[in-house]
C-alpha cells in the first residue's frame, strides 16, 4: 500500500471524529483518583459515588445535532467558571479534531 493510499484510508476514519461527548464533573477529586498513583483511571471512571457532580454535558452527533446539559447552580460553587471550563473543553476537543483534519488536508492535497 502506498503512502497515499494509507493516508486516504486513515482519512476515511476521520468521519468518526464528527461525533463527540464532553462531560465536566466537580466535587472531591480524591473520590476519582487512585490513592496510590494519584491518577484517574479514565477507562473505569464512573462518577456514581454521588460525590462527583455532573456540571455539564455536551453531545455532538454526526449530523451536527448538539445536546447541551447543565446542572442547576444550587450546590455548585461558582458554576459560571465551571461552565466556561466546559465550553473551553468542547472547543478544545473540536480544535483537536480540526488539527487532525488540517494535517490530512495537507497530505491529501499533495498526494
Amino acid at each position, binding site marked *: 500500500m502506498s*503512502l*497515499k493510499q494509507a*493516508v486516504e484510508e486513515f482519512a476515511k476514519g476521520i468521519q*468518526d*471524529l464528527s*461525533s*463527540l*461527548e*464532553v*462531560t*465536566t*464533573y*466537580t*466535587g*472531591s*477529586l480524591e473520590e*476519582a*483518583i487512585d490513592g496510590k498513583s*494519584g*491518577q*484517574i483511571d*479514565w477507562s473505569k*471512571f464512573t*462518577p456514581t459515588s454521588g460525590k*462527583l457532580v455532573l*456540571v455539564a454535558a455536551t453531545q455532538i452527533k454526526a449530523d451536527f445535532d448538539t445536546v447541551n446539559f447543565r446542572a442547576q447552580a444550587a450546590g455548585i*460553587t*461558582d458554576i459560571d*467558571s*465551571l461552565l*466556561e*471550563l*466546559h465550553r*473551553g*473543553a*468542547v*472547543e*478544545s*476537543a473540536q*480544535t*483537536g479534531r*480540526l*488539527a*487532525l483534519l*488540517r*494535517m*490530512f*488536508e*495537507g*497530505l*491529501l*492535497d*499533495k*498526494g
Partner: protein
Amino acid sequence: MEVDPIELLGRLEDDLRRAQELTGVASREREAEQRLAELGYDLDEGLAAALEEFRVEAGLPSGGGLDREAWDELEQLRGLDDDEIDPDRWRGEDGEWLPAMRRAIVTRVVELTLSKVPERERDVPSVERVSRMLRAVDFLRPDESGLEGMALEDALVPLLLRRRLDDGEPERPIERLRRTASERRATRRQRRDAEREVLWPEIERIVRSREFVGEFSRVDVVRVLRAGFAEAFEAAHLAMARFVEHVEARNQGAIRLNRRSRDVCVVVDRGVSRAEIMQFVEGLRRQDRSLLICAELLGTLLGITVAWRPGMGPAGVLRSMVGSVPRIIALGRELADVWTPQSTGGSGGSGYSAGQ
C-alpha cells in the same frame, strides 16, 4: 545530472538492439524493417519494395537493396545525431530536405512528443504528412501549454535550422521558439535561485529566534532545516510529541482533562478557584492554537514528502518544496507568536513556560 532525452532514447534503442543481437532475435533484415517502419515506409509489399522506396527518397542509386550504404543511411536517420549528420547530404538540388530526411524529422518530432500523428493520419501520404507536421512546428508558440520542457533538444533544432539564414531575413518561428524557451528556462532557474536566496534565510531567521526554538530547544531546528525536509518532518513530530506531553501534564493538577477519541472528560476539584479555572481555560486555548499550527506544519511537510517520487532529483524535490515554503514561514511565525514569553505570562502554572 539532467540526461538529454535524445541521448536517453538513443541509449534505450542501443540497449534493445544489443539485447536482440545477444538473444539472436534480431537479424539485419528485421532491424531494417523496423527502421523503415519507424520512418513510415509501407512494408506490406515486402522489405525489398520498402527499401527501394527508401533508396529513392534518400537519393541512393536504385536497386541496391540493403547494401552497406543503405544500412548506414538508415542508421544515420535513426539516430539523427547532429554530430554525424551531414545536412548537405540530405538536401535536394532545390535546397529542400530529401523525403527520407523529412520522415526522420517527423519521426523524431513525434517521439519527442512535439506532436502526435493520429492513427488515421497513417494513411496520408508521408510527404504531405511531413509538410503538415513542419507547418505545425512553425506554428508552435512558446506560450502554449505543454511546451514548457518540450524537447527542443540541441540535436533537433539545429537540424531544422541548418539552412543558413541571410542577414536581414526574418527570424523563423522555430528559432524564436528555441530562443524563447531557452530564456524561459533561464528565468525559471533565476527565480528558483532567488526564492532560495530569499526564503531560506527567512526560515533561518525565524527558527533562530529564541521564541520559536524556546519550547523545542532540544531540536536544532536550523540544522534540520538545512539538512533536509526529512529531518524537518522529524522536528515537527517532536513538536507534536511535546504538545502531547503538555496535555498529559494536565492530569497532574486539581483540574484533570482527559481526551479520548470520541469523548472528553473534565474533573475539577471543588477547591479550585475561579482564577485557576480561567487560567486553565486560557492555557488550553493557547495550547490548542499551537496544536493546530503543528498539525498543519506536519501535514505540509508530510504532503511535500508524499509528492516526492522515486528517482526525483534534488531539483524536483526543491520544486515540490518551494510552493509550501511561504506557508511554512507563516506557520513558523504563528508558532513563535503562540510561544513568546509575553503570551505565556501568568500561565506558567498551566504548563506554558516557553523556556522550560
